[in-house]
């Protein structure tokens, strides 16, 4: 934790309110996000109990699995979920704009520009907490290898038609969420935690109710009190007033309310199956429907507060202006979305269970690059983020007190002006350490030369190295002037891309050689006893 965030947390404790950790919003928020508040069944990994899902804050769609251990009902839930999610996703696939991408020409080996489509906007799915992101990934994993009756008439338990496709999209959202700064799938607690520092631990910040209580406590109450109440307060029946954001449920809810309701449902179902004539069946169907309605009401009562909390979080975040470089990162999300849209359209198989060596290395390299980019861009967009870097010696701000023109010692001397900056910061500088400042959105490089009067006086002499044009005289505005207030970073603004890795077919012997040719599609997980009720 950086020094400044420790300070912010202390201030939050002191004032009883969360302190801003950012002056701008560092994540893109879609105008029409899809909010997904899922619940799972205790003791059944990945068995959904129900969810609220939708794009309209006043009209969420309630999906419920009245008996979560029944495979048919789970499939019905997933099919309903597909009916909500896939039309939403498809809604972004149509509108495209023309864009250029450089590709390697297979014949000449040169980089050439190719005209491609880029989706004009990308979907955005919001879940309440990080555990929700994991569940999206798990649901994706459980669905994408399923076979429908149309794909494989022999399959013993065919999935409803659109379920495998939903699995592929949820997998894509889940993978993309691992890329730092991406916004296709966001956890509300993570986004709020990035923008506010509360007076509790980051682990406690994973409780959406408590986090919101710190950020926006009710009138006349302190954040700490409100957060404690959100975590602990129970009603007369012993139920949490602010239910956990899920997907796990509170054991008191499971034991006292849910289990008896599911039992009543089971009994009603057995009774219906045993009905001997039409009149009896009608009555018992009524009882079954009533039992199901009861479970639906229970699920809604646990998800609705979280649903409202997610939208309240959105309201708070939307009050912050969007950071200048957020749109650029959003464009990367659009590329990612477009690429997956194209893979699906081209009939490619679902994402494999495990990445091969080359894919794994490429993903890791891309995420490290995005992490560096995100940290640099957040600092450049936001003085508060930059302050953290300045405190840790990775950047410094100050006033230009002197500029002396100098030239490089080459046949065609280029300008290399010496700029003296007075700063109160203590950057980690050494001889010829590079520093960068933003000049019209582009980084200008400088080199540290010396301390003008000892390291403690804060007078730094820098040599400006580039972005001054081709001539002997620097272009106007490209050299700092006396009195300018500047901020230099010791980190690069644009991370450099690494070397290209070999193609998977050329995986070297040290990494097991090329992956075997395996044209057969990956089978779905085998059915085990536990899968059947």
């Amino acid at each position: 934790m950086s020094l400044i965030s420790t300070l912010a947390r202390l201030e939050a404790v002191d004032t009883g309110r969360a302190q801003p950790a950012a002056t701008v919003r560092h994540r893109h928020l879609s105008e029409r996000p899809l909010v997904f508040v899922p619940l799972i069944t205790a003791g059944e990994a990945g068995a959904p109990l129900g969810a609220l899902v939708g794009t309209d804050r006043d009209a969420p769609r309630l999906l419920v699995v009245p008996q979560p251990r029944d495979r048919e009902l789970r499939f019905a839930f997933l099919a309903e979920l597909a009916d909500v999610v896939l039309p939403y996703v498809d809604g972004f696939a149509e509108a495209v704009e023309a864009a250029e991408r450089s590709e390697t020409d297979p014949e000449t080996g040169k980089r050439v520009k190719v005209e491609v489509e880029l989706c004009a906007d990308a979907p955005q799915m919001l879940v309440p907490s990080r555990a929700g992101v994991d569940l999206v990934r798990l649901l994706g994993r459980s669905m994408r290898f399923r076979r429908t009756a149309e794909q494989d008439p022999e399959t013993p338990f065919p999935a409803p038609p659109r379920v495998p496709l939903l699995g592929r999209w949820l997998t894509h959202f889940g993978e993309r969420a691992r890329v730092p700064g991406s916004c296709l799938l966001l956890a509300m607690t993570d986004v709020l935690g990035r923008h506010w520092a509360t007076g509790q631990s980051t682990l406690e910040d994973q409780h959406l109710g408590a986090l919101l209580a710190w950020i926006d406590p009710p009138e006349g109450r302190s954040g700490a009190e409100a957060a404690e109440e959100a975590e602990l307060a129970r009603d007369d029946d012993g139920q949490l007033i602010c239910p956990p954001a899920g997907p796990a449920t509170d054991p008191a809810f499971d034991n006292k309310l849910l289990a008896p309701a599911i039992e009543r449902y089971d009994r009603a179902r057995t009774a219906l199956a045993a009905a001997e004539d039409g009149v009896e069946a009608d009555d018992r169907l009524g009882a079954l429907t009533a039992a199901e309605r009861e479970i639906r009401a229970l699920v809604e009562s646990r998800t609705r507060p979280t649903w409202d909390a997610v939208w309240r979080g959105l309201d708070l975040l939307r009050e912050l202006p969007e950071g200048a470089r957020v749109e650029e990162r959003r464009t990367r999300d659009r590329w990612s979305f477009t690429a997956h849209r194209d893979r699906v359209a081209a009939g490619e198989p679902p994402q494999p269970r495990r990445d091969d060596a080359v894919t794994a290395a490429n993903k890791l390299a891309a995420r490290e690059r995005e992490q560096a980019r995100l940290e640099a861009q957040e600092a450049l967009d936001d003085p508060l983020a930059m302050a953290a870097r300045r405190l840790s010696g990775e950047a410094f701000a100050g006033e230009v007190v002197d500029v002396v023109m100098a030239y490089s010692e080459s046949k065609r001397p280029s300008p290399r002006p010496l700029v003296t900056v007075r700063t109160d910061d203590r950057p980690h500088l050494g001889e010829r350490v590079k520093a960068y400042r933003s000049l019209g959105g582009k980084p200008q490089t400088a080199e540290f030369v010396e301390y003008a009067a000892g390291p403690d006086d804060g007078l730094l002499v820098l040599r400006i190295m580039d972005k001054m044009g081709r001539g002997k005289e620097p272009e106007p505005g490209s050299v700092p002037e006396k009195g300018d207030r500047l901020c230099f970073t010791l980190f690069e603004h644009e991370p450099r891309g690494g070397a290209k890795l070999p193609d998977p077919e050329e995986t070297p012997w040290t990494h097991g050689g090329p992956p075997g040719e395996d044209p057969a599609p990956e089978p779905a997980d085998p059915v085990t006893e536990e899968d059947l009720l």
Partner: protein
Amino acid sequence: MTAPVEETAFDPGSAAARATDAILHDTLHGPARGVVVDSPPGAGKSTLVVRAALELAEAGRPLMVVAQTNAQVDDLVLRLAEKNPDLPVGRLHSSDTDPYDKALDALDQVRTSAKAADLAGLPVVLSTAAKWAHVKNVEPWQHAIVDEAYQMRSDALLAVAGLFERALFVGDPGQLDPFSIVGAEQWAGLSYDPSGSAVTTLLAHNPDLPQHRLPVSWRLPASAAPLVSDAFYPFTPFRSGTDHGDRALTLAVPSDGSGPDRVIDEAAESGWGLLELPARHTPRTDPEAVGAVAQVVRRLLDRGGAAVSERSPDPTPLTADRVAVGTAHRDQAAAVRAALADLGVSDVTVDTANRLQGREYDVTVVLHPLSGRPDATAFHLETGRLCVLASRHRHACIVVCREGVTDLLDDYPSTEPVQLGTLVKFPDGWEANHAVLSHLAEHRVRWRP
């Protein structure tokens, strides 16, 4: 019955020579595509790399050498040039400013270029893994030497392994593992986990490769090798090349009775010293501990230290360039530098464990990674970090630490999630830290600044 006889007759020189011969034999004449050499601190790894390079070049096998940093590459080039001034050597470098040591320009047999094609046909070409990864569309080299292979990440090896047919991998398994700045749990347990070490991936896919280890540390004194070996290499023990009495550290100026002086005396006598400050939770840049480190260094230089070793019978003065300070974090290093500057000390190396890897000094002063901390995170417990800090010295190592680290270790259970399919690393940091602390406790000097 023969074992005890061998034990008493252990001759470090011939044991090391036997190991080197076996390595070179497997490298030059063995059938396997790869050979792995584990080398404890100061066991002559660079000497081995240089010798193997010269022999491969002599055998007419085009050789590429992969090291991890530019400083390591330059160092190898200079050593090669020193051993065989007639051997043409290529130094492939990046296109940044000042990409290599200017000393290389003075050597006629060294050709430098940023393009691999310019260096084609030279018997030996050296560069960093990062630069090699950009080399494409060339005829593969017959042989490669990968230096510091345990510090190389698996994905870095993936990027360069297509460039060679066979390779010798050399490294120290006890030092810091490579790391990534983003989570890589997704691939934990896969044989080719890109965030793991190159050697782990290599051996997972090629379990039959011959593995050797160098049995003798020439750097560590007889007082340090048993501790470092037991604490960090429990299953692959090594010995020191010198015996008790072969090295000595003497001080011309007698002790003034202060804590720093007493700990210096203890370390000069026994090879280890622990300067223990009163227990306290502190910020990372604990001003008292940082001040204590600076004072120990100041007194070390003031007291006219002189080192006698097998290298020279005459005492060598203990100058600032023979002393180093090691810390866990960069801000701690910066604080120590500032404190030293206040005491008028300039030329002493102060750096983090990461940057001290592979370096060697007469005396090191270490700010203990867990000193003053309220918690014991995986970063601070990492075995490699303590191992690097405790194995840079030829004569003595002085550790500055707050009291209470043993309790801290006992209070904090490891909370890292268990990943299926991954190799559990032994010894774990908890155990290694305890082993080192219990040994240091015998050389403790308590001091209240």
